[in-house]
């Protein structure tokens, strides 16, 4: 009887012992994976896509600290729609099979990337013991989930094995989110202010086209073989055209019935006694006439906000030219671009020979300012 009781007791002890061992084994298996700490996933911009762009091809930078100083052979990044749970559903649109390994640093390096299974890329290397500490890994060319403003999770697990088999050593989950991209839009209205007249004055220091005086421009004297007749007109221009403006002069030379005064086909000094009609946009001297006529463009070009300048053929004092459709000015000082308002003064000269038929000579000149936006 006593022997039988001992046997029953022994069986009970063995059963209980087995249960204890079983429970302990179960518990130890459950708690063996330590928590990866200080973990984050930064969505870095790719070649052309912002880091959080839904469906964008971007780079995923993982930073974390590995707590266990044990053998490490592989690190898995499992992309899921939920942070935890037995089932991991890969976020829609995520593509990791084209990813490559970028930078790697910290307590464990020497990895290569295995990207064959979409949503679960892993790093592998020859298993080696590490010391606990921080590590950083960058996956290049990951396509984000395609839904904007969607949170997704990456379950990070380390393994002693080189292929993520076996029990995880350390685990931790990070969260990241795609985001709607913001597109800024605005319109800068194109502008051009241009006017011509006998005179234009400034208002508050700024050329004011509302002051342009209309009407006929008369030469200062009757045409004479012994003296140069002169006249002036003004024009003002400003634009925000990115490539600036160009001003051309258009019209016939001075005409009286079938008689004309010859337009100066090339830039030259005026010569009394010859038939010539010319224009320039400069401050001339008494070499041309007394009193001197014309002024420089004002304000003067500075290559920044004042770019207006006289053009070749019309930009040398005391030399004149007139060919219809010629470009007489532009806003290219310091490079073609927009310019604040400036006033150009056009100076006209007329010389005639003694045989010039009498009469009233007139012309209508049209200045055309063309901005290029």
């Amino acid at each position: 009887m006593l022997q039988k009781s001992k046997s029953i007791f022994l069986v009970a002890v063995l059963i209980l012992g087995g249960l204890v061992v079983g429970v302990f084994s179960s518990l130890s298996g459950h708690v063996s994976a330590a928590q990866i700490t200080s973990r984050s996933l930064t969505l870095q911009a790719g070649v052309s896509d912002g880091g959080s762009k839904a469906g964008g091809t971007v780079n995923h930078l993982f930073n974390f600290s590995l707590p266990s100083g044990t053998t490490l052979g592989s690190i898995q990044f499992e992309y899921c729609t939920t942070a935890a749970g037995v089932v991991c559903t890969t976020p829609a649109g995520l593509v990791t099979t084209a990813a490559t390994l970028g930078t790697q640093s910290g307590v464990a390096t020497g990895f290569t990337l295995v990207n064959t299974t979409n949503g679960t890329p892993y790093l592998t290397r020859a298993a080696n013991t590490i010391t606990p500490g921080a590590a950083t890994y960058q996956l290049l060319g990951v396509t984000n989930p395609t839904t904007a403003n969607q949170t997704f999770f990456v379950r990070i697990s380390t393994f002693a094995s080189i292929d993520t088999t076996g029990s995880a050593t350390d685990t931790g989950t990070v969260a990241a989110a795609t985001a709607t991209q913001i597109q800024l839009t605005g319109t800068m209205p194109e502008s051009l202010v241009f006017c011509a007249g006998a005179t234009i004055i400034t208002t508050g220091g700024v050329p004011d086209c509302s002051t342009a005086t209309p009407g006929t421009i008369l030469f200062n004297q009757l045409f004479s073989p012994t003296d140069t007749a002169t006249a002036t007109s003004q024009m003002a221009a400003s634009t925000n055209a990115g490539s600036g403006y160009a001003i051309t002069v258009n019209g016939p030379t001075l005409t009286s019935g079938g008689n004309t005064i010859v337009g100066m086909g090339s830039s030259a000094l005026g010569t009394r006694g010859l038939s010539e009609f010319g224009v320039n946009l400069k401050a001339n001297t008494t070499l041309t006439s007394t009193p001197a006529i014309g002024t420089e463009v004002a304000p003067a070009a500075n290559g920044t906000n004042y770019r207006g300048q006289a053009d070749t053929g019309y930009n040398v004092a005391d030399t004149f030219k007139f060919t219809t459709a010629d470009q007489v000015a532009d806003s290219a000082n310091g490079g073609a671009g927009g310019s604040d308002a400036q006033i150009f003064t056009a100076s006209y000269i007329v010389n005639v020979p003694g045989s010039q038929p009498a009469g009233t000579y007139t012309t209508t000149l049209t200045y055309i300012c063309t901005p290029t936006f």
Partner: protein
Amino acid sequence: MSVVVVCVVAGTASAAFADTLKSPNYQFEESALGGNSILDTHSPDYQASTSAGILGIGNSASPSFQINAGNTTTNDPALAFAVNSSSVSFGDFSPGSTATATSSFQVLDYTSYGYVVQIFGTAPTNGAHTISAITSATTPHTGVEQFGINLVANTLPTSLGFNPDHGQFGVGSAYTGYNTSNNYQFNSGDTVASAPKSSGQTTYTMSYIVDVSSLTPGGNYTGGQTILCTGTY
């Protein structure tokens, strides 16, 4: 006192902020799952910040450690981040006035050591011409080309934007350079908002300004902006 990790919506797969659960007499400010939510619930005559059995609630943090006190929960991270606008239009620019616009985004981040929100992108650009970004926070000046943003309420150039709305549990704030009223700047990659610890929903309003000069080339200006939220867990 029992100290366990705070309860969050562990199963949140989508970051979309759900509509508030409410009836004519009752509503949930922030919805949560679990036996005892720590999240605030109230009606005009009633308010409860906790449910039964909770001895302590809330977050305590130091530079290297934090606890979230509450009831049964998970240590899984929860992040919800939503940008509420896909386009921001300034209309027409003018040298005589400052163009303004706003957009907003929301962040909720639990079981974390906080988050940072960064902005990436370009100032409005038209072909080869880009509106100059304000690299150091300053007030707007008409007639001078500049582009900037901030994340607070402003009175210049007009009443514009709002301070971060922390709701019941938000702790995030606008970051240096973007946190001074009437001062704007923009540097791609800058951190514009952050929270030092777990945070309930915070709504940020970004205020944009654009000034142009008389020489700003005419045309349509566009600029792409990416907002990025990174939590540390």
